[in-house]
């Protein structure tokens, strides 16, 4: 295969012209799910939801402050609670506006900038967790993309204000609407690949062949994690050395093999639900939850096709309903009307 043909394929992957619908729908799903997640989990899930309330870090002693690289490089300090409350509120509003697509360029940029600071904050107190990096990159990609061109209030306003017929039309298919979604796929695949390769680099195949997974599963029940395991099944699995190794092998294969999903459409049907199941399994068996990463996997779904399919189903149902209604009306018309009881003619008052 020549360099030129590789580049052609490369261009097709990144910049194949498509309609703006899928990107617009991905925007709604990404920001909408994160808005709901960050606003409601502190209220709905008291045992771990406080993780998503960043304002709490405002009153932690600076003795624990050990800023992550980006915050250290930008000399960003931990702010007091009152400031954090304001930033968090602005961020949540920006997430909502990004979801509905109002002032999309500004709101997506604010979502990214505030998100970086807020999510960097907990990671600067003791330990870096890896549950929100994919989300941060997705926010950056969306902020640079033209994700507000469809399925947004901005698009409706633009159409309403458009004076020419061209301005009132939907945007033409473009490579602009392909690369953001595919870049999120690539970042997702890199994260899993690096996680898998890190295991091989630091532990080799011993990660699978020794009791590594069994030890992690047992250890999780000694209250060492950021969240408690959702079930006690981890201890059940840890009773069997073979079962633990099987889980380790499965996890490693999924992580290293996930990159195949970029090239094979068929494999996506297995690999994407596979990593979602793996991360749900980690929450159930070991505690750490990766809900943000799980939600980002929704970007693999071709939402424009899903919506088209749903719209088709609704149309079919409506049409069949109409058809049935016409048939019923026809049947009703065919039934001879019962003779009316004889009523004497009212006497004329004239």
């Amino acid at each position: 295969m020549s360099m030129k043909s590789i580049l052609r394929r490369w261009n097709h992957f990144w910049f194949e012209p498509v309609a703006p619908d899928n990107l617009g729908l991905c925007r709604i799903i990404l920001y909408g799910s994160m808005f709901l997640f960050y606003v409601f989990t502190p209220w709905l899930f008291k045992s771990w939801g406080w993780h998503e309330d960043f304002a709490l870090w405002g009153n932690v002693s600076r003795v624990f402050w050990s800023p992550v690289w980006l915050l250290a490089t930008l000399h960003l300090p931990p702010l007091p609670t009152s400031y954090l409350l304001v930033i968090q509120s602005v961020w949540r509003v920006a997430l909502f506006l990004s979801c509905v697509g109002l002032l999309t360029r500004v709101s997506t940029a604010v979502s990214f900038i505030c998100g970086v600071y807020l999510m960097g904050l907990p990671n600067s107190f003791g330990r870096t967790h890896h549950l929100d990096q994919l989300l941060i990159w997705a926010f950056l990609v969306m902020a640079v993309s033209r994700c507000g061109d469809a399925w947004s209030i901005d698009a409706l306003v633009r159409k309403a204000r458009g004076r020419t017929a061209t301005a009132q039309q939907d945007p033409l298919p473009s490579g602009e609407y392909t690369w953001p979604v595919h870049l999120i796929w690539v970042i997702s695949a890199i994260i899993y690949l690096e996680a898998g390769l890190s295991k091989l680099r630091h532990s080799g195949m011993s990660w699978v062949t020794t009791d590594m997974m069994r030890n992690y599963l047992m250890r999780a029940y000694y209250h060492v994690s950021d969240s408690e395991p959702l079930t006690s099944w981890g201890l059940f699995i840890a009773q069997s050395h073979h079962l633990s190794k099987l889980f380790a092998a499965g996890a490693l294969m999924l992580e290293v093999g996930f990159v195949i999903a970029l090239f094979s459409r068929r494999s996506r049907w297995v690999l994407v639900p596979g990593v979602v199941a793996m991360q749900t399994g980690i929450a159930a068996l070991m505690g750490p939850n990766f809900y943000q990463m799980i939600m980002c996997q929704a970007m693999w779904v071709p939402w424009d096709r899903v919506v088209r399919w749903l719209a088709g189903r609704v149309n079919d149902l409506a049409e069949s309903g109409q058809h049935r209604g016409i048939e019923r009306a026809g049947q009703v018309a065919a039934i001879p009307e019962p003779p009316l009881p004889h009523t004497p003619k009212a006497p004329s008052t004239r």
Partner: protein
Amino acid sequence: MSKIGPQFFAGLLFADGVFNRKLIFGVCVLTLLAVIFLNRELRAVFWAPSRVASGDASTVCPMTKGRLLAAYAVAAVIIGGSFYDFAADRETWPFSQYPMFSFIDAPPSGKFTILRLYGVPPQPSVEFPLDRNEYLEPFDNSRLQNALERNTGQQQLAIALKDCLQRYDALRAAGIHQGPALQSLRLYRVTWTPNPQASNLYAPDSRKFLGEVFETGSSER
């Protein structure tokens, strides 16, 4: 340019001992870009998304060159940063090599050691582990032990433990947890050999006292 092949890149990578890694990484990237931009055909393919085929003019909107470069710049920063961190085996958040659960840091028995805080209520003065995440939120058990590990120096430890005790009291007063009032807070280094029933959760193999802080403000070690 056709003479530059895989051997060249391999040579650059093995020059690790001589040159700075950042320099090698940068040189590799620049060389790749040079290969693309010095070849006219490859250059044409590179800019193809910003051009439109004659038949597609009314059905496809090409990207501008600026937007194309912006897309590549974003991708290069994210992907390049991730690969660089992986190559250097370091973590510069939000970039990372994603090392979670990677290390075999326990003997075959699975024995492990962590720092754990214990609360001492006034009556009865029997200490209990502060192992529920609600006791010291926004810290969780995972973050707290790392944060404490960095503060085991005498002066810092007293400040850190005092902060934890105040946090416990404040959360208790706010009704976040129903733990008893405390007269002091102790820090131990605790070791367990885990078992598949977690039956020794409250009977660890060993505990080493590291420090204590009292409600009155005094501390000892």
